């Protein structure tokens, strides 16, 4: 089946400037362009990164710095993804 042919890519995310890229996980994509975009959606939707590398077997593809804004800024305005967004009455434990 041809639809099984989306290869696996390893994803490396630089969480902020000054730090190196670290392995975040992997994903499937038909090609490098989609691997980057899928990685952005999957591994940085809470603003966890400023740069991504995706690596198939030997090649490395990195997101370019000027793509940073549209890639990573939208995640900053979704406070409801974080538990502190929710008001829980005093004394309620283990939430």
């Amino acid at each position: 089946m041809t639809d099984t042919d989306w290869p696996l890519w390893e994803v490396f995310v630089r969480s902020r400037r000054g730090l190196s890229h670290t392995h975040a996980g992997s994903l499937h994509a038909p090609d490098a362009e989609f691997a980057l975009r899928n990685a952005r959606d999957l591994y940085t939707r809470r603003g966890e990164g400023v740069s991504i590398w995706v690596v198939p077997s030997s090649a490395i593809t990195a997101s370019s710095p000027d793509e940073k804004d549209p890639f990573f800024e939208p995640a900053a305005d979704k406070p409801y993804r974080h538990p502190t967004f929710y008001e829980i009455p005093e004394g309620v434990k283990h939430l």
Partner: protein
Amino acid sequence: MTRQAPAPTAAHTTTAALALGDDALVLSHRLGEWMGHAPVLEEEVALANIALDLLGQARILLSMAGDEDDLAYLREERAFRNVQLVEQPNGDFAHTIARQLYFSTYQHLLYDRLAAGRSPFAGLAAKAVKEVAYHRDHAEQWALRLGDGTDVAHERMRRACTALWRFTGEMFRPLDGLDLDPAGLEPDWLESVGGILGRAGLALPEGPRTGAWTAGAGREGLHTESFGRMLAEMQHLHRSHPGATW
């Protein structure tokens, strides 16, 4: 409350806020319908991201015109001001991508210009234009792959582009409250969409795309058949409990 009639600019701002807010709200809802049905898991995440961006925009825009929930849940179909393009059913994935390509290209051009202007929308547009750049890119990447992938996908994409073409003229009609004439965006839109479709081995469809007699009077509150059903689903729970807090 006020001693004089509201300044015309405020009323115009409300008109534009409703129009742009409804565009974002309705398209977000349609994209939300994909959840659990996307062609591949990675795309569940991507479509949800776009839907969430649009919903965020909608909430800001509707809040400029009133209470976001009252506006979303308590208006009748004829009071919605979105273009008809965004309310079109998801269809197959090609229809969704064609709708995304047409709309996000327009929205990107519009927000880019609004961000540079001095209207009350400049702030929102400056932030949203970055989100929309990503939506446009997502649509472009998929349009290329569907158009230039397999024969089956090419044919589906061609049909989708043609089917939705009639709804594209409406986006460039004048809209009160904006410091620009949307008609000025049309040449760039045609060039951008035409370029992408060209690279995908497709062409800009032919056929009429202006005039309410064919399609495109959403801004005046005339919508298409499926929209009422979409609203019925969206609004029913909220309306079943008048005055309740959620």
